């Protein structure tokens, strides 16, 4: 019921269009039900010459058209009447289809946009922990289910109601007892539909989930194809796939079997109902209670109303699907999105930063301290390097700066403002971060680099040069117009990282963060990029996470992290003087490559 209300709310301003569509349906139904009445009058009044039962209006109409004796020689007039009625009925049917399509497509459009917008504004933590396949499934096929329900089934409900209502009215006027018999099995059909609706809801859900699992298996196999091949795990993969493929088959077949039971039983009831009407007609007509024409109307009507009543079962089933989909979409919409809190400020940001006793744990894992009591100060324009083992809290620390996560214990100040008081979007427009595994959009390289702001070609090229990717792009046939991703070229990890760097630095942020974003780039290129950056940025406060001492040795401050705490902090020269983690890393790298790289950097870094 809650879901039904949600579905109703999704319709918002389209409710009127729906109403018009349903009115058209009602009129179309009323006209369609007139045709058997004409047949009744033709048989009883014209051909047999009896009194017509119940049906005053059509009888008067026929009187107006010339009466029995005239019409019996000119039966074509009744034929024209049928054609005319059907034509008008057709116009209403057309509007019913058009209006309901307009309304439901609009609902779907709004829902898609709302969902898209919402997903983009969900928290960083949400996206980190959510299965993208599932989210995509919900955004696409669940919306489609709702759309189909609204465009087809909703109006069908209206049709069924009118069909049953108008038929009942006409039939009661003709013969009350006969009407009761004609409607005898309908309650059974309704109850049966309802039961079916309960069962099918579950089995559809199971089938959909199983399809999603199957897709994930295929997707992962394709993504990891090199691993599969190198490990000779084709057989293992095939077995894994077969299991899921089989599960999908079995589970979906259950849905189909449910359909088979439903339709066969409901068809049995239908024919029993028709038989009931036909046989009763024989009795009643023989007893003179109804005329032949009336019997024909009853038989004709029962054929017409039984279908919408049966349809109700299917509509309810689709309502079940639509409600499941509504629930699945609402689950996303109910997720808390990042909001602007009233009173958040948009200060001019220069780049002075202070961490004061910052402790942090991820919202979904409160027991695991990611950062503990982290405090340090950064002056505007300084370069801060962060080193430490995997999982030491380096990335989490820098993720706090653009408020990808919110700090609850301790505080972070930028230019003296607690960042929790600064508007998130504003903050992110001033704190540029290059993620370790950056995402590139499937558009041209040019558009990727100027993604945040439309930039001119010169700026794009400059940024690409600084990121040491200009020459790579130039080698592509289409240069900067090369499309990346599914429909275009596949880039290597290092190339992606460099384009992501270009995309970030093009914006002249006062604060820049490189979250291990050169890991896939070779040392030479790393040095070239760092050198180019150093030349360009003057007042930019820069955070660098790296494993390479050669990338960070000249930082103004080096922070060494271990298990969420700052273990060492200071300049390179100072840190290598005392025994500690940094010294150890330095010693390892020093002999092998550090000096090589430093010398080269000093020599110009080619």
């Amino acid at each position, binding site marked *: 019921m809650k879901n039904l209300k949600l579905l109703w709310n999704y319709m918002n301003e389209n409710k009127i269009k729906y109403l018009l569509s349903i009115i058209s349906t009602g009129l179309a139904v009323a006209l369609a039900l007139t045709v058997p009445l004409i047949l009744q009058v033709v048989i009883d009044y*014209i*051909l047999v010459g009896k009194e017509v039962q119940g049906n005053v209006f059509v009888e008067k109409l026929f009187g107006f058209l010339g009466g029995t004796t005239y019409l*019996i020689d000119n*039966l*074509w007039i*009744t*034929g024209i009447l049928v054609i005319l009625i059907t*034509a008008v009925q*057709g116009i209403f*049917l*057309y509007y019913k289809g058009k209006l309901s*399509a307009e309304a439901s497509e609009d609902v779907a459009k709004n829902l898609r*946009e709302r969902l898209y917008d919402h*997903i*983009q*504004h969900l928290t*960083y933590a949400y996206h*980190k*922990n959510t299965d993208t396949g599932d989210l995509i499934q919900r955004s*696409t096929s669940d919306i489609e289910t709702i759309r189909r329900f609204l*465009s087809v089934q909703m109006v069908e409900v209206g049709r069924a109601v009118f069909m049953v209502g108008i038929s009942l009215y006409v039939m009661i006027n003709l013969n009350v007892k006969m009407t009761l018999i004609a409607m005898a099995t309908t309650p059974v059909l309704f109850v049966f539909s309802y039961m079916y609706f309960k069962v099918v809801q579950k089995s559809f859900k199971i089938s959909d989930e199983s399809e999603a699992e199957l*897709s*994930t298996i295929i*997707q992962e196999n*394709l993504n990891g*194809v*090199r*691993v599969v*091949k190198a490990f000779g795990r084709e*057989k*293992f993969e095939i077995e894994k796939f077969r299991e899921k493929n089989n599960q999908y088959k079995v589970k979906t*077949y259950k849905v*189909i079997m449910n359909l*088979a039971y439903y339709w*066969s039983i409901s068809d*049995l009831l239908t*024919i029993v109902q*028709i*038989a009931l009407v036909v046989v009763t007609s*024989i009795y009643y*007509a023989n007893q003179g209670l109804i005329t032949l024409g009336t*019997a*024909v109307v009853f*038989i004709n009507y029962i054929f017409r109303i039984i279908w919408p009543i049966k349809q109700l079962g299917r509509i309810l089933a689709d309502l079940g699907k639509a409600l499941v989909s509504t629930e699945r979409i609402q689950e996303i919409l109910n997720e808390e999105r990042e909001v602007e809190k009233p009173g958040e400020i948009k200060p001019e940001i220069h780049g002075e930063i202070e961490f004061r006793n910052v402790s942090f744990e991820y919202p979904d894992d409160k027991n695991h301290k990611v950062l503990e009591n982290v405090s340090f100060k950064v002056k505007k324009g300084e370069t801060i390097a962060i080193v430490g083992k995997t999982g030491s809290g380096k990335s989490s620390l820098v993720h706090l700066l653009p408020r990808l996560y919110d700090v609850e214990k301790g505080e972070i100040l930028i230019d003296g403002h607690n960042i929790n008081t600064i508007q998130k979007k504003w903050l*992110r427009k001033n704190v540029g971060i290059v*993620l*370790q*595994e950056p*995402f590139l959009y499937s558009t041209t390289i040019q558009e990727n680099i100027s993604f*945040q702001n439309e930039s001119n070609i010169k700026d794009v090229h400059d940024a690409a040069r600084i990121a040491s990717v200009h020459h790579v792009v130039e080698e592509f046939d289409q240069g900067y117009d090369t499309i990346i991703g*599914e429909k275009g070229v*596949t880039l290597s990890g290092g190339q992606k990282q460099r384009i992501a760097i270009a995309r970030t630095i093009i914006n002249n942020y006062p604060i820049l963060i490189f979250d291990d974003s050169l*890991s896939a780039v070779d*040392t*030479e290129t790393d040095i070239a990029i760092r050198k180019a950056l150093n030349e360009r940025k003057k007042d930019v406060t820069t955070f660098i996470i790296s*494993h390479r*001492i050669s990338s960070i040795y000249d930082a103004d401050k080096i922070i060494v992290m271990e298990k969420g705490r700052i273990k060492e902090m200071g300049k390179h020269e100072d840190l290598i003087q005392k025994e500690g983690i940094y010294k150890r*890393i330095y010693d390892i790298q020093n002999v092998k490559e550090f000096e*090589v790289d430093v010398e*080269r950097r000093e020599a110009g870094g080619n």
Partner: protein
Amino acid sequence: MEIKEKDYDKKLDLKTWKRLFKYLFRYKYTTIGLIIFMISLALADAILPQMTRIAIDDFIIPNTTEGLNIFILKFAGLAVWFASNVFAFISIAGRIEMELTYDIREEAFDKLQKLSLSYYDKTQNGWIMARMTSDIRRLGEVISWGIVDVVWGTTMMLIISIFMLVSNWRLALYTLAVIPILIIVSIYFQKIILKAYRTVRKINSKITGSFSEGISGAKTTKTLVAEEKNLNNFKELTGDMKTHSVRAAVFSAMFLPIVLFLSSIGIALILWKGGEGVVAGTVTYGVLVLFISYATQFFEPVREVARVLAQFQQAQASAERVLSLIDIDPDVKDGKEILDIYGDILEPKKENWEPIEGNISFEDVTFYYNEKERILENFNLEVKKGETIALVGETGSGKSTIVNLICRFYEPVYGSIKIDGIDYKKRSINWLHENIGYVLQSPHLFSGTIKENLMYGKLDATDEEIVEAAKIVNAHDFIMELPNKYETQVGEGGGKLSTGEKQLISFGRAIIRNPSIFVLDEATSSIDTETERKIQSALERILKNRTSFIIAHRLSTIVNADRILVISKGKIIEEGNHNQLIRKKGYYYNLYSNQFKKENLEKTII
């Protein structure tokens, strides 16, 4: 756009469908059963209005109830006949649909596992995914339910025509006069309706793509504050979607009124000519009512058949794409005689597998993707069992190709690669892969637990072996800190772990298999130095009796190799150990020093 449209509008290619219908051959008897049930159902459908005729002509008009019991019994029999047919056809068609989908999907997936990397290098995953999911689903649907509708529809039309002609051929001809127009209109409309919906589906797939990008790129979007921009792009698509969907719905909304109008002409003719017949005594009341029922009923089978034919035409493209996937011949595959001895992927005959020593030699190997750009030419290399070989060189120098050839992801165009003195083509691919440990630059994990991922290297690994492997690669410590330790779910593609952690696991899964040949393809670039150092010392022990190949940028990773090969333009231009190459002061020396002070580099000589 236009060009693509064309390949959808292909004429029905019987050859393609014949091949797909071959899948049905496995379910020959089931399919024949389905056809029989559909014919039987169509017969029941056509008999139903006959019951009304009998009621009128045999009972109501003569005003008798004689034989009514038999009539009721017949009616009951019809109901059971009808219902059991409905049950049978849904469950059988559903079974065929699911089996067919299962079989085609399995065959395609099996083929995917057999295809060599050259295929994956050329084909986008998205393309394959679409074939594996929606195209195959569509084929299953179209074929199974297509049989249902076509058999039912044609039988129904045939039986109704026969019934009418037998009852009153003159009146039958009046009614059937409308049918040709009905058929033409139906085919025409079904075509444009499906075409319109195809446009809708295309836009829909763009929306899916856009959702997928919005979701996968949400984190990056956040850092770039590009939410508005993405939403605006998305809104263009949803706007398009609405316009085209409404257009398609309007076509559908036009179809039904036109069809109803046409059948109303049929009804009008029957009222006119049939009515005259009743007056003249040549047509009974029952036949008049029967004909009106048939005239109403006739359009449904016509529509169904027209729809299915149009659907088959639409599905043609899906069919061709799926078959093209199944038909591809892998570039690298085992010959028949080799499969006989060594077994295939699914049934490896491990009892016939020789143990591998690890002596590898390249003999006059030439390799290229395209003849004009030779990547390797007459390449020779002799690697002794247990040697550690480092490959150094610029991107595109051919070092990755050498590794790809060793792993037999690709095969030499000319020349041969011998393992333990025998051309590796004389053994199975699987035999080689079972003996290789491979670690990639971007570690790909599979969803499942950490333990399952480690076991990917050795499917029957014991818990002790798993822990031991994790300890060797220094992953044990971080694993034990995770909430569920070895049972922690890594998420899709390993997404819940950091890149460094993923890399450790991928090292672990390579080490656990105790391979004779070890390949590290840029494997250490994203691990922090200390961890790398620890892996390195472990590796030194592990690599001892294994032939290993290392591609790396970091000097620290290659400095301990037995032999370093400097590759340039597909040739070995220098070789020797680190010390020798530094002393040689050649390309290697320059690569790592460029304009570097000699003394410093010489210090690295151990």
